[in-house]
Every structure is written in C-alpha cells, then in structure tokens.
C-alpha cells in the first residue's frame, strides 16, 4: 500500500495502462475492434496504443462484431492473445454466435488441444444518459455460457489488475467495464508494483455487522453510498464486491452472510433470470441456518432499458436498496 499521495487516475486510464503493460510484456497480445486505433476507442481506453505498438497490433477492424470476434478466434488458434473491444454492450450481440459456439467451447471441443486465450472487453450498464441500445446489462447471457469467465471491476486498481489477469488467463474472459465508472478517479499509482489477485476472488469493500449487500461493477459505489446512509437508520452494512461472476467466490460471500445473517443482492441487470437469482440460491444453499430473513434482490426492472430521461427510476439506487434492507425482518430479531 502506498503512503505517498499520487495523481488520481480514471478507470479508463487504468484499463489503458493494463493493455499497454500487457502488450509490452507479451508480444502476442493484440488489440482489435472498432475505432480502437487513431481515436483510442469511443471511451479512449486504447488511447495512444496504436501509436506505440503500430496498426498490426492495435487494429481498427471493419465494422462487424461477429467478424471481429471470429477472426480473433482464428488469431488465437495460431497462438496470439487477442483483446477484442466491443464498442457497447448491445452491439456485442452480433458476436454471440462466435462467443457461444466457438470461444466458449473450443477448449472443450478439442479436448484441451486448442484453448482460446482471448479477452472480450465490453462496456456495459447504464447511468450515463445513453440513448437506446447503449446501456444494457448483458452479464446474465455470458454467465449462463459454460466455458467463459465473466469479470467486472468496480475500482480503478481492480480495473488494472483484473484486466491484466484476464489477458494472462488461458481461459476466454468476458471483461465487463462499467461505463459510468470509466471516469471515476482513485489515487492509484500505475508505476508501483500491483497486488493483482487471481480472477475469482470477491472482496469485502466495507465491513459491517447488520446485513450484507452483495454486488458488483457499477452498483458497488451505489451500495457503498447506501451503507453510509444506513448508519443513520442504525444499520451497519457490509458490502461485498464480487469482481468476478464466473468463477463465483462462494467462500467470501457465504462467510460474510454467515456473519451478518441477512443479505441483499444488488445489480442493474433485470431481476427475472438475472444474476441475483443464482446468487440468492447459492447463499441460501450455504447459509440457510444462519439466515434471519430471505435473501432479497434489488435489480433493474424487467423492462427493455428505458430512455435516458427515465433511467434513474429504473436503476437500483440508495433508497431502493435501503427499502430492501428495511424488509429484512428486523422485528423478528428481538
């Protein structure tokens, strides 16, 4: 841990730094996607990479997501480690067939002879005032696909560390970047050695005793805010940041819920068929005798993502989280 005050960096900068360091360390790492070259990506994550590494390694591809991922598969077959950028969550859908039928299955189909160590970066989630098709939370689709790892950072330091891990991983990783945290800042020093944890470890972002908020990605700061506000109500909330949806860290999550006895899962993705159902089931299976109340979910409504002028009503916010916490059967306690 650093004690020197460092210049704040944004999550987008940390992601860019991770790409740059990975490309420097490993000549097989290639970045490809729409506008990733001269422009540096629509979110500027790949800013400067084309200049530094050249167009052969940082490639503005034709505008076709299935083609981008499909050719990345072929490149990985030949021993490269492509990092693909999908421009937005909803524009990754054309690449679904390649992702599901090939990226996720190739290791299995070839009995380990042809692993595909590629990373698919997908900016996801709402809260940035994006017009239609720019705010989807698509993690449930990826989570439901065996063969993929699904990772999502919530802090600047994790953005760097997890992306480095994802690129280094021999499994294909869908790396979900919370759009509205791209510009979040942290005093993170890129020039220090990074304590990078392997993919698959959740972390307690805020310790507490009353109940656990289980969350990830864009909802982590919202839950931390809710935990601060909950103090006024006399609740001391613990916040667990999952960091990785696949693999899932049952150990950290269950340990937290056993301590607190109550849990709420919070995410932007729709609740019905969403990640929260799986998480609630896993918690219940492991912590049933420690639970004082059913595990609740605070999720986006089960609607197509709304127009931006209405999105604040859709996204799980502090009040909705606190309402759920209030419903955790406190009266039964005394």
């Amino acid at each position, binding site marked *: 841990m650093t004690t020197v005050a460092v210049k704040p960096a944004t999550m987008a900068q940390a992601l860019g730094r991770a790409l740059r360091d990975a490309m420097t360390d490993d000549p097989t790492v290639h970045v490809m996607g729409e506008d990733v070259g001269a422009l540096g990506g629509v979110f500027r994550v790949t800013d400067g990479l084309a200049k530094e590494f050249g167009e052969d390694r940082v490639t503005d591809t034709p505008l076709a997501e299935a083609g981008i991922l*499909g050719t990345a598969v072929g490149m990985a077959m030949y021993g490269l480690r492509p990092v693909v950028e999908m421009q937005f969550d909803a524009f990754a859908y054309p690449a679904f067939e390649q992702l599901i039928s090939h990226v996720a299955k190739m290791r299995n189909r*070839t009995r380990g002879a042809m692993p595909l160590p590629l990373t698919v970066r997908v900016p996801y989630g709402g809260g940035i005032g994006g017009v239609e098709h720019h705010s989807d939370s698509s993690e449930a689709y990826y989570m439901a696909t065996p063969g993929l790892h699904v990772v999502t950072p919530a802090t600047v330091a994790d953005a760097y560390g997890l992306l480095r891990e994802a690129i280094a991983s021999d499994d294909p990783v869908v790396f979900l970047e919370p759009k509205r945290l791209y510009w979040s800042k942290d005093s993170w020093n890129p020039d220090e050695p990074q304590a990078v944890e392997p993919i698959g470890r959740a972390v307690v972002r805020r310790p507490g005793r009353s109940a656990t908020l289980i969350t990830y990605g864009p909802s982590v700061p919202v839950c931390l805010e809710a935990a601060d506000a909950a103090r006024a109500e006399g609740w001391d909330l613990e916040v667990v940041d999952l960091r990785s949806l696949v693999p899932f860290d*049952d150990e950290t999550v269950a340990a937290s819920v056993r301590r607190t006895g109550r849990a709420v899962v919070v995410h932007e993705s729709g609740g019905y068929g969403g990640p929260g159902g799986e998480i609630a089931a896993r918690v219940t299976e492991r912590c049933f005798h420690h639970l004082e109340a059913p595990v609740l979910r605070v999720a986006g409504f089960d609607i197509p993502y709304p127009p931006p002028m209405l999105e604040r009503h859709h996204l799980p916010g502090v009040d909705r989280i606190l309402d759920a916490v209030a419903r955790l059967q406190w009266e039964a306690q005394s």
Partner: protein
Amino acid sequence: MTVMEQRGAYRPTPPPAWQPRTDPAPLLPDALPHRVLGTRAADRADPDLLRRLYAELVRGRRYNAQATALTKQGRLAVYPSSTGQEACEVAAALVLEERDWLFPSYRDTLAAVARGLDPVQALTLLRGDRHTGYDPHEHRIAPLCTPLATQLPHAVGLAHAARLKGDDVVALALVGDGGTSEGDFHEALNFAAVWQAPVVFLVQNNGFAISVPLAKQTAAPSLAHKAVGYGMPGRLVDGNDAAAVHEVLGEAIARARAGLGPTLVEAVTYRMEAHTNADDDKRYREDAEVEAWRAHDPIALLERELTERGLLDEDGMRAVREDAEAMAADLRERMNQDPVLDPMDLFAHVYARPTTHLLEQEAQLRAELDAEARHHDDDADAQSHEPEGTTR
C-alpha cells in the same frame, strides 16, 4: 490500372471523399466453369498428379460408402456424405502444403482424411463420442465446423496471424452454397480482403442446402460473383473435374502466398445422396436430376482421361480399388469396436482453471459413479452367493 492495384493506392482525399472503382473486370469469374479434363488443358496436367487424384477419388468414394453403411449399422449417429463431391474434397486436401491449414465443415471429413487424418478420428463427431477426434495442430485441420460459415472468419484470423508472424502459411476454408447466405460468410470475405489475408474460400455449390435449392438462396449471377464486391477475384470451376479444382485452387493459393490476398472459388458440383442418412431427398428433387449428374461423375471423368491417354492401365486401376477396399475394411473393423469413454471427461476440458461450481459438480458425478460401481459389485456378489440350481 486494375482494381487490385487501385485498392492499395486508394486514399480518401475530399472532395470527392470516395470514388467508385471503375474496372471490376479482373475480379469477375468466367462465364463458364473452368474445366481441364477432356479439354486441351489436360495435356499440360502432370500425369502423376492425375494418378494421385484418381487414387484418392476412388478411396474417397469408398470411404463415403463405408461411412454411410456404418450409419445403417448404428455405428455412426449421422453421416453427411460427400458422394459426388469427391473431386472438391480430394483436390482441397492435395493442393495444400503440410504447413497450411484446412478449415472443414461437417461435410468435409473426406477432405480431412485425404489430408492424412485417421478416418476413425475424423468420424468421432459423427459417431458421437468426441466433438473433435483429433488434435487440430497435428495435421493443421481445424475442428469440423457445424454452425454454418462460422469457420470462415477463423480461417481469416489464422491466416492473418500467420502473416503477422512472417510465416508462409495459407488457410483454405470450405463452405457450402447455403452457407454463403450467412452473415459470417460476408464478414469473413470482407475482413480477408481488407487485411489481404492469405486465405482461399472454396464454396462447394452442390445445388442444395438440405432441401432448399440455390435459386432460393441467392439472386447473384453465380456465387463466385460475390467476390467482386469485396475486391477479391472470384473463380468458377467445374467441381467434378478434380484436375480443374486442383488447378484453380493452386493458383489461388499461389496468389495468397505471394501476398496478393484472398480468392473466392465456387466449385459447381452435385450432392448425389440425401443431405444425410436421416434426410429424404425424394421430397424435394427428382430422380431424373440425380441421374443426369451421374453422366458427369468425377471418378468417371478422370478415369476416361487416364485411360484415353494411357496413363493408367487395368492393373493400375485394380491396385487403386484394392487399396480403397483395404482402407474400408480397416475402417469397418475399427468402427465396429465400441469406443471406451470416461464419464469424468465431461469436466476435463471446460476451463484451464475450473470454477468452483464445476468442481462441485465433478465431485457429484464422481460420487454417482462410485455408487454405481458399488452397486455392480454388490449385484455380482449377490449373484455369486446364490445357491446352485436357482433359476433367475
């Protein structure tokens, strides 16, 4: 200036921001499929190559017949036969160098076998014991691909990667006429042309996508014409003329090797059998149509050439047939053995680093198998302790 020369020089300088190319002629396919056998061009063909193609065609036909027979004996779950299309399959295999890569579809097990893959390994997908029965790196044959046209961008990516590494490697990707309607076909050809990737696309136009004839698939003058729109040459070839397919593919591969980019080759052929053994082609085509194609059989075409020019005598042909029979007998015998499967293999290759929930499920299956095994032991015990003379 030809179109291919224009494309490298093109730089958008406003105004106008973009200029249409004026001369697509060098990219256009000929009006009629290219032929070698029975034409003057055959005189230039290498006799050894013709004999090799012939031997492989006969083996290929026999392989198709044997695999179809294995479906009737329940030894294969399904078989999409390439009977009638052997010239394409065999030429595709023989035209490649060892270091090159082949990207086959489900119908192309013959191409894989002709490239040197063990037929049993080629057939595990269709037997149902392993999705891919071989290590793709061993013969540089990508896994047999079932989702139509999705293997094409892989071929482009692999060829592109090889070129970036400075390796002299060409990828040859096989696809059917129906597959050309898929988005992945379009995207793959576009990427290949933009990147000038050393890749060749061979469309086997066998007239049908299961039951749907080509006329319902496209309004293009030919499938080879589609190349022009991507800025690559299209070639039309008689897909039952093994020498012609070999020649056209050879030229396309030489172009790719020389850094001149991709080529689209359409081979006009015909699927002599139903889509698979599970299909009923009487529902959508006339016997007469199939019969008409028998007169243009790939083996007969080549046999006539070899005989007329005295390149292969009756003894030579008998030797070829015997070799094919021996291959079929060996395949039959080995396919008549039940594959030995380990259920724990279900979990063996899902991840490099398995998830915890997968490890739990693996343990669950292990426990189920152990319990099953104990049951078997108990049953066996019980049986051996039964008093003599008991009837069961």
